[in-house]
């Protein structure tokens, strides 16, 4: 990138989500000046009210699709973006709100129990990944993503190289850190063996089992891990709850003998996962 060239424009969009992914960008406090030096923040309401009109070189998308309006809006954003990257568990896999997708759940039946005026609520019966609706160029995993992975992504886009984002199992990072395995040494159920590294093995470092918040590792073997959890004496419904968290609807976290439940509403194919 030469000094004279216009900076690439970056837009950050929110769908059904908690804003945590966007906050991870803002958490890059020490690097924010470098970021705004390298890219033009064209649309990022959580950061600035100034808006530059599209189309955009890069769009980062947080959140899942849970309303008819969102299903339309993501198609427009796709039209207006050269590169579109999804951020976080909601955008990548539907998020924890995808619990509504499972058999027996009925989002429409829940609405009156949550909202005083259910007549104002218009919702889909599913929460689906952005890549179920449009093609994407890649994603950064995690609930929320590691802020340094976001920095790595932005750097790689600026320099035109492939970002270094891990896809291997949490256990590798746990061992590198020198942690004692909580599953083997404490008998604590841990999702680490099937979970993607990237958080810095936070939970095992504090003697907790991994909760899978970075999503499935590259080739998760949930059947084998379930066998191990059973041998630790974890109850069947706790095993199911254990894997139905941030990445509940991700095919990588489907348990033994389970189908991937009902198909998502949209008929577009899933994206490729990581870039």
């Amino acid at each position, binding site marked *: 990138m030469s000094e004279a060239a216009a900076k690439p424009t970056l837009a950050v969009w929110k769908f059904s989500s908690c804003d945590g992914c966007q906050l991870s960008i803002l958490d890059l406090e020490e690097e924010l000046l470098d970021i705004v030096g390298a890219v033009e923040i064209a649309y990022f309401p959580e950061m600035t009210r100034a808006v530059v009109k599209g189309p955009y070189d890069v769009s980062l998308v947080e959140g899942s699709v849970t309303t008819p309006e969102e299903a339309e809006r993501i198609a427009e954003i796709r039209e207006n973006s050269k590169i579109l990257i999804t951020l976080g568990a909601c955008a990548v896999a539907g998020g924890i709100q995808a619990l509504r997708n499972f058999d027996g759940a009925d989002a429409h039946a829940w609405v009156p129990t949550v909202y005083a005026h259910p007549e104002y609520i218009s919702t889909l019966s599913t929460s689906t990944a952005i890549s179920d609706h449009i093609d994407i160029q890649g994603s950064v995993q995690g609930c929320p993503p590691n802020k340094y992975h976001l920095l790595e992504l932005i750097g790689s886009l600026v320099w035109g190289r492939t970002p270094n984002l891990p896809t291997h199992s949490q256990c590798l990072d746990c061992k590198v850190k020198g942690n004692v395995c909580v599953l083997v040494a404490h008998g604590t159920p841990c999702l680490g*063996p*099937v979970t993607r590294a990237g958080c810095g093995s936070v939970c095992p470092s504090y003697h907790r089992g991994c909760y899978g918040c970075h999503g499935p590792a590259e080739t998760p073997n949930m*059947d084998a891990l379930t066998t191990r959890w059973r041998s630790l004496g974890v109850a069947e419904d706790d095993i199911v709850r254990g894997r139905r968290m941030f990445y509940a609807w991700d095919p990588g976290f489907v348990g033994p003998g389970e189908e991937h439940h009902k198909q998502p509403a949209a008929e577009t194919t899933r994206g490729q996962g990581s870039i």
Partner: protein
Amino acid sequence: MSTVMDVQAVYTLIDSLKSDGYEVVGPRLRDKALGYVAGTNGSDLPAGLGDDQSPGNYRTRDRGDGALFGFRSSPQSWRRWIFPPNAEVWSARRDNDSFVVDTSAPDSMKVAVIGARACDVAALTIQDKVFLDGQFQDPAYKARRENLLIVAVNCSLDADSNTCFCASMGTGPRVQAGHDIALTEIIEGDKHYFVADAQTDEGSRILEGISGAPAGTDEVAAADSAISNVADSMGRKVDADGLPELMNESYESPRWTVVGERCLSCTSCTMVCPTCFCTNIEDSGDLNGVATRTRSWDSCFTLRHSHIHGGAIRNTNKARYRQWAIHKMGTWQEQFGTSGCVGCGRCITWCPSGIDITEEVTAIREEA
């Protein structure tokens, strides 16, 4: 000539290593396990603590005998002090129209490991072949290796060695070569002593400064018989006869499918193994134009390990477990002239699925 030392003398030995400028890496209770930690004092040694290990399970226990080294293989080997998990290889930064490359000099910290077992010392000599004996030497490894002092401990206390099988692999339980000092801990009724032997000049120099009496024939015999007792009661066995050939011909064994279903491809076995040497090289650049090349521990259980043009060639857990086991027990021989396994048992204990390499090798032999 052997010397007899008491518990206090072991503490003095640690103090004297520290005053000689060594960073002492020794065993300590941490996170409910007995592992190696830097900055060891005599009072950190896990007096009276032992462990119980089985496939996928590890627990500490009170031995009730005050033993300083009454435990088996540690959760991880101490390879990280010679072959660190993450190391910057070089970095480069922009300088007007050119760029400048920065390489840091290898660090020259003196490290002394106390409590190293025979399997781990044997593993170090295997890693030496990888990093030092080939066409190219690894300068960072070489610098750390030259500054390493090893106070080894012969395994003498635990009759049932649980997941270990060093006797099968011919590496232990008596430390063979590569160490500076060897200690054998003996507890008989009220008597608690160590038989110490220096193996190198540096080892002799250090032992001379420690109070101890020349060992008598009884004490030497007690040490010998305690070590043989451990050798005779190994928790696991592998028939090492013709093992490389067996493994090299096992490619089509149906056993790989069975074990592949249990394997999580979690990489734990390769991370805890004292001989594994695979690394990943990553280049990255920050927003200010500083590029960094980093070398990090990698494993044949990751997809990228077999990634070539067009994708990974070992896509299944079965293919990756097979690669690992055949490398350890088979092709390593061709590559480096030794087995890649020293029988420390760590991959068995620390496998979250409890997969036991000795059981797999036995099954493959029975099917062959």
